[in-house]
């Protein structure tokens, strides 16, 4: 059975598909989070150097990875939107930004929480944390650009251009901050766990990352559905029969 994927590029077709997918992604996400947290707290051993504080990596690293992945995915949708002039692509990019920004914020917060007991400071200017900070500014730029421009088409396309410019900037920032850290040799601190991680630690971290991925997909699909209805102003697409009856009778 061949699936005609291109029909889902129309918002009207994608809306119900997204609606059917959300429950699946949500349930599996929650389940995996449960597994990951269990492994993280009850299976992974205590770290030799950092004691129990290292367990923060089970949210810090997945959040940081998600913040980066989501930015790239958002930029990809932005690029597709600009290239194909497709409304749905722009709507997907619009839906991704808030979740990506949230993960960036969490990466920074948990990074500070990890840094304080480990290095004695709430903030360290290492390449990863500083890149996350710049990433947060870029997410803010994408979202503010959209809200500041009234014309929908211009807002879509402008924030798309900025997303693409930002995606080029992120690796450059990472490299330049690493360079800057070696330049000012006092602060060659790194936010990695240093020694090799035990297999269970790595597994728990990966499980949490996948869980975060699935959570993101569910949340983003839910948001894009709201965006579709808000923007397209089409009549309700999946109202219950009782409501439709009510509408019909009112006419």
């Amino acid at each position, binding site marked *: 059975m061949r699936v005609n994927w291109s029909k889902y590029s129309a918002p009207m077709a994608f809306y119900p598909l997204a609606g059917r997918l959300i429950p699946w992604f949500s349930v599996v996400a929650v389940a995996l989070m449960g597994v990951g947290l269990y492994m993280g707290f009850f299976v992974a051993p205590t770290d030799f150097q950092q004691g129990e504080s290292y367990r923060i990596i089970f949210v810090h690293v997945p959040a940081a990875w998600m913040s980066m992945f989501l930015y790239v995915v958002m930029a990809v949708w932005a690029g597709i939107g600009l290239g194909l002039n497709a409304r749905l692509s722009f709507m997907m990019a619009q839906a991704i930004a808030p979740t990506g920004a949230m993960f960036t914020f969490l990466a920074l917060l948990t990074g500070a929480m990890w840094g304080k007991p480990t290095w004695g400071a709430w903030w360290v200017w290492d390449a990863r944390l500083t890149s996350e900070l710049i990433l947060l500014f870029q997410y803010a730029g994408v979202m503010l650009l959209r809200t500041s421009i009234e014309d929908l088409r211009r807002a879509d396309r402008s924030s798309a251009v*900025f997303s693409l410019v930002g995606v080029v900037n992120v690796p450059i*920032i990472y490299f330049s901050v690493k360079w800057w850290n070696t330049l000012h040799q006092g602060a060659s601190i790194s936010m990695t766990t240093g020694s090799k991680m035990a297999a269970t630690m790595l597994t728990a971290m990966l499980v949490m990352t996948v869980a975060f991925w699935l959570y993101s997909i569910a949340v983003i699909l839910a948001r894009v559905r709201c965006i579709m209805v808000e923007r397209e102003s089409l009549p309700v697409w999946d109202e219950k029969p009782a409501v439709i009856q009510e509408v019909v009778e009112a006419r």
Partner: protein
Amino acid sequence: MNRSSMWEAVGGIVRRDLLSAMRRRSDAAMSVFFLVIVVSLFPLGVGPEPAVLRTIGPGVLWVAALLACLLSLARVFTADYVDGTLEQMVLVPQPLAVLVVGKVFAHWVISGLPIVLLSPLLGLQFGLSGESLGVLVMSLLLGTPTLSMIGTIGAALVLGVRGSGLLVALLVLPLYVPVLIFGAGAVTSSMAGIGGEANLSLLGACLVLSLFLAPWATAAALRIALE
């Protein structure tokens, strides 16, 4: 398409912008005054101790130059946007990206070059001397055009938008960070005795990269803004 007509168009833009700037000398003057004021604020805030000033000097000078560039972005497209020249630029057969390079070059000559020329004097205020002053000038010479190129992307994106002043800062400052790191780093390394060549090379690379990529992004942003 005619090669010479492209260069004629670019030359025409540069000449026109430079002429109008010479008539309104305030633009160049504003960048310079802003730079001097901001740079003077730091010793007032931090204290006059020479060792401290020498340490923070490169960073302060570079941040001030960066902020001066940022502020000057408000002027790069507004005049042409208001009188309709920008729409003309989009419509002519010459590639918009190339015309953008011309505009940015003129803008840099007006707003960026004065910063480069003034920097040795300001460097002296912070106790920089000899070779590091030279590196400072070189870093700004390579860096300010890059900042102009990158900044015009932001300026084009927010063309005609309310509250664009702050918005363009938020958009552009994350993009400025690498240039700042390499620029200030060049002077710092030179003062530390390591020599600024590595950082200056990286600055050169940024300039080349921005020269090739930024005009396309700016042209795309202009088209979007003018639709």
